């Protein structure tokens, strides 16, 4: 009995540490995004709140918390209330499965990849339900776009990950990292470069980021599915988006870039290499946002179904074939 309680306590402590780290990352990801894009666009970015604007995310959070939570007339109230939380929970839970370090993984389950994929599919429900419940035409169109987009890019992403699973021979994320260390190239990026590209593109689409930010295309659908939301519920959608980015990047680091392993060991900072890789991928997200225009809806679907999925399938067959030979 005592053993179980000890274990429970240690898990809770680990969970709290993880949650705090993740939330901090998400909060400062917004700050980093604003600063980096500002640099790319030759302006300053936030620099008023705190030294170099470092307290900006906290100020934003406080502001959004104290704003009035408007509920428009005619919305489907229970669903309207719950939709942002569905998005957030589904996007955030994935963090628990990522092995940040050999000895630090909150829940090391055997079907890790499958679980993350399931969660990211579920997070589409938050978007669809919010679009439906808002009783607004813009939100409705945004929700429709989101559902179509998420479903079609899910397939490409799964295909890319399946190749990795085939190479590693396991669905467990820790096993995948270990398999990478033992493989001749140390990371799967080199043999699975095609799968990596497919994965990154689908991940951007999955998170509704530029150039695939159609569900919330600001200039077309005003804000898409969360146009009727305000205050904290609005902020939660943002949080979910950034959580999604972090989880997807972390998954890419785990599956393609060798997880916590680096060229040499950095003493006292076990997460060092993981975080470096994670930050690089997050930077790519931001970089893309500052550079590319937005796709049109039909072109986006065309890219998903006509390019990414066939490429993913071919890569999968190729991997299987090579695996069979060697």
């Amino acid at each position: 009995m005592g053993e179980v309680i000890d274990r429970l306590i240690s898990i809770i402590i680990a969970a709290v540490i993880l949650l705090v780290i993740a939330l901090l990352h998400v909060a400062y990801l917004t700050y980093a995004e604003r600063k980096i894009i500002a640099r790319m666009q030759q302006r300053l970015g936030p620099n008023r709140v705190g030294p170099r604007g470092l307290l900006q995310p906290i100020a934003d959070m406080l502001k959004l918390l104290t704003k009035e939570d408007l509920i428009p007339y005619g919305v489907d109230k229970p669903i309207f209330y719950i939709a942002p939380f569905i998005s957030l929970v589904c996007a955030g839970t994935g963090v628990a499965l990522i092995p940040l370090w050999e000895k630090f993984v909150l829940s090391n389950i055997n079907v890790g990849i499958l679980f993350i994929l399931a969660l990211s599919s579920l997070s589409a429900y938050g978007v669809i339900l919010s679009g439906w419940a808002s009783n607004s035409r813009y939100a409705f169109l945004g929700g429709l776009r989101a559902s179509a987009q998420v479903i079609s890019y899910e397939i490409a992403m799964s295909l890319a990950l399946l190749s990795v699973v085939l190479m590693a021979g396991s669905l467990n994320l820790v096993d995948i990292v270990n398999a990478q260390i033992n493989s001749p190239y140390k990371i799967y990026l080199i043999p699975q470069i095609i799968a990596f590209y497919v994965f990154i593109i689908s991940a951007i689409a999955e998170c509704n980021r530029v150039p695939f930010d159609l569900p919330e295309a600001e200039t077309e659908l005003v804000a898409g599915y969360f146009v009727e939301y305000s205050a904290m519920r609005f902020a939660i959608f943002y949080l979910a988006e950034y959580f999604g980015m972090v989880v997807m990047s972390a998954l890419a680091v785990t599956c393609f870039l060798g997880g916590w392993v680096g060229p040499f060991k950095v003493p006292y900072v076990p997460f060092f290499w993981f975080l470096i890789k994670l930050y690089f991928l997050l930077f790519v997200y931001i970089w893309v946002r500052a550079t590319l225009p937005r796709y049109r809806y039909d072109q986006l679907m065309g890219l998903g179904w006509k390019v990414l999925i066939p490429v993913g399938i071919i890569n999968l067959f190729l991997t299987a074939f090579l695996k069979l030979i060697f």
Partner: protein
Amino acid sequence: MTTYLEINKKQVNEEKWEEPFYLNMGPQHPSTHGVLRLFLELEGETIVNCTPIIGYLHRGVEKLAETLNYNQTIVLSDRLDYIASAANNTAFALAFEKLMGLEVPRRAKLLRTIVCEMARICNHLLWLATHALDIGAMTVFLYCFRDREWLLNIYEKICGARLTHTYVRIGGVRQDFTQEIIDELYKFTEEFPPRIYDYETLIDVNRIWLKRTKGIAVVSAEDAINLGLTGPVLRGSGVPYDVRKFRPYDAYGEVDFIVPTGKNGDTYDRYRVRMEELRQSNRIIRQCLDKLSETEGEPVLAENAPDLLIPEKVRKPEPKPVPKKGVIFKGEEVPVVPPGEAFASIESPKGELAVYVVSDGSGKPWRLRVRTPSFVHISAIPFMAKNHLIADLIAIIGTLDIVLGDSDR
């Protein structure tokens, strides 16, 4: 107007969702460039019907002009197309000069040309910024604003205002350029062309940009003329109609420039035409600056230019006023401005801006009609948007380059 609202309401109340999907785009929408309202009938995301509804920014400029004198009217013109107000000033001034039979000094003509071309660059930069932002490229937006800011600062040095200048006056311009302004403009003309190249490298070869603009909203030359489209939109369809070449005004007759035209008449061609026009405008400014040195010290206002406060009525004094009981003053009214009518049009950055003025001899116009390009361009949206997607509609609004202050007047 109410009928559309009724349709909406009816659909919601009776839950008739099988009927076409109606969407009210605007008047508050981030990318309708103002208070344009588009009533869309959708099938999925394809536009079946599109009805533009304007008038939300109607200030009655034409009616107001009838109560103001000619010089005051120019102040109203600033508020039409507030992005390129120098062009509007020029159009008004040209019409009034034609009416009054004034000859503008050469230096004033050159100055006007410079100011107009600066307005064109300002306008096209803002257009590129917002058009790219509409399509989703965010960075171009801020790059363009940086250069526009430079020009606005020069405007501030010229006349003290950044957007609503009223720099052009009937019979000339308000004041001469200082040497500082000329130096600054020289510097601008030198540094600007490489920057145009920068913008082009940002989006011109981008696959997504090409996909979003090529083959979108194609207008044939015939249709474009019939729809009354002018400016870069018409030239994008391959018609080299440019008022600066066809009916030269100001100093455009003596400068050398090319009128760029497109081939296919799609959004991409219109974008190319505007980018090329930026270069040509830069060239025109450069030439005019060179010519300014030839006219050093010449006046910038015609000698017989009307006073800023044109009296409403002038009475010819009688040689021998006959004192009569009850009548203090007697005399014959003399027209301040020759009665008649005049029509002048210019190539404003957005298209052809025409002013038709009727005078009754008093100090105020009897009727002032402004034909604004945005008004005509908005009327072409239903034709262009048919069978396109919502995302294309945004590109169409962007490519037409409309300003609602210009269309609603």
